[in-house]
């Protein structure tokens, strides 16, 4: 099991997070479509941390075992938190003038999506899970 941590302080860190996400996905055997899903999801979440919380941290983890490939990204920030999670998770909602596809769009790219937000900040955890082909 390996863990990589990328500190998110500016938009070049966003590129680093995206590249690290794709590299890890490739390394543990995910195909190009899943690599792209994972890299795109990490890009969305990392940008949220930068835009709404002026930074945070992205942790990439390989949680695979003999039966399945399980790749996780956890993006956490210590920003003001999301007032209305239900609203933030609904299509078309955005407070920053983006298309509002950010969070719900990210959720559709991955197999597990968990978000917790409060006054201490926001933590989003995503996973892509694939059965190993033997």
């Amino acid at each position: 099991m390996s863990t990589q941590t990328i500190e998110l302080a500016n938009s070049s860190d966003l590129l680093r997070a995206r590249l690290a996400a794709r590299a890890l996905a490739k390394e543990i055997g995910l195909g190009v479509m899943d690599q792209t899903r994972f890299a795109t999801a990490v890009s969305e979440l990392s940008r949220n941390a930068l835009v709404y919380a002026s930074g945070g941290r992205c942790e990439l983890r390989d949680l695979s075992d003999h039966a399945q490939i399980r790749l996780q990204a956890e993006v956490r920030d210590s920003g003001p938190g999301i007032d209305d999670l239900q609203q933030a998770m609904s299509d078309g909602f955005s407070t920053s003038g983006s298309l509002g596809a950010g969070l719900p769009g990210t959720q559709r790219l991955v197999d597990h999506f968990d978000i917790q937000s409060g006054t201490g900040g926001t933590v989003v955890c995503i996973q892509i899970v694939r059965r190993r082909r033997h």
Partner: protein
Amino acid sequence: MRVPLLRLNAHTLIVPLHADVDDEGVLSFQSDLTERVAQDQVRGVVIDVSALDVVDSYMARVLNDTARMLRILGACVVVCGVQPAVALTLVEMGRNLVDVPTAFNLERALVRLERLIAATDAGDPLTGHLTGAPDEYAND
């Protein structure tokens, strides 16, 4: 690193976006391109995204906004070279993330661009809609 704006001929620009363009780079690309198009009265722009292996909702919005700005100025825009995995993520993320004419590659993009320009010239000056001009969406 700035995004290069390549002049193909008197009225066409080709803009290859590179993979490691960051958010600031994307915004300067947007303003450089709109200024250049207005200054040189460029009729058509091809934005080549074949180097992008990730297009997230932010990048998609910038592409849409840029195309809209250029159309307001009077230019036509075609995006080319969307990677299959990028098309997949854009569709899965949902909504009309990319709402711009597209083409497989640069060559087809230039053909499509010429048609768009011809259609604009032949069209109703108010709506830009075709008035008996060849169907721009017809296959090659």
